[in-house]
């Protein structure tokens, strides 16, 4: 099941610069997308999300962009900080009213922010 892909397993960025993490999906029925941050031996922590009716959502240093025609989304972190170093997972869902809707995760991108 490769419905959600993160093609870059790792990314290294200098502190203060922009980090751009990418995610591609194949199922055009997905209507909600999320980014999670994960440290080793901890649960995924929700960062930011976007509905398919939007193409951009911003929350502080984090911005998510959605390009539905390309089935692509990206997470921008600016400025990057050392504390941002973690694995970032993209996830997608198809929201069904009246039933619980699962998340389909990508394989993750390990971000390292260097001094």
């Amino acid at each position, binding site marked *: 099941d490769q419905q959600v892909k993160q093609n870059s397993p790792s990314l290294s960025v200098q502190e203060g610069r922009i980090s751009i993490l990418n995610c591609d999906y194949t199922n055009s029925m997905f209507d909600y997308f999320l980014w999670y941050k994960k440290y080793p031996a901890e649960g995924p922590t929700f960062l930011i999300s976007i509905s398919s009716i939007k193409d951009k959502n911003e929350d502080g240093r984090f911005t998510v962009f959605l390009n539905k025609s390309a089935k692509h989304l990206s997470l921008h972190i600016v400025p990057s900080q050392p504390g941002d170093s973690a694995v970032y997972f993209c996830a997608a869902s198809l929201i069904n009213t009246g039933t619980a809707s*699962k*998340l389909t995760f990508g394989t993750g991108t390990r971000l390292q922010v260097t001094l």
Partner: protein
Amino acid sequence: EPEVTQTPSHQVTQMGQEVILRCVPISNHLYFYWYRQILGQKVEFLVSFYNNEISEKSEIFDDQFSVERPDGSNFTLKIRSTKLEDSAMYFCASSGRMQETQYFGPGTRLLVL
């Protein structure tokens, strides 16, 4: 800030033994989920639960697995007869009425020997 909690944090068991993983979802949430992550792999969906019944289950969630919400606060995952390949981190998640954002617990690391 409300959070999802899970117990135990670690469990070691022998192959063939039963294990029960426990979760307390965020109190006003309505939708509940179990996921797992085998070391080095992506987070995989196991099962979702709403209105006291399973909404969806993955191929992984075979007859050895079951879920229960016994008392309105806990949400449990039972593995009846564990296999070596069940070794993984198991995450519980819950979401509210709009069910858009799922919030995850810290996970239970299960090791089957």
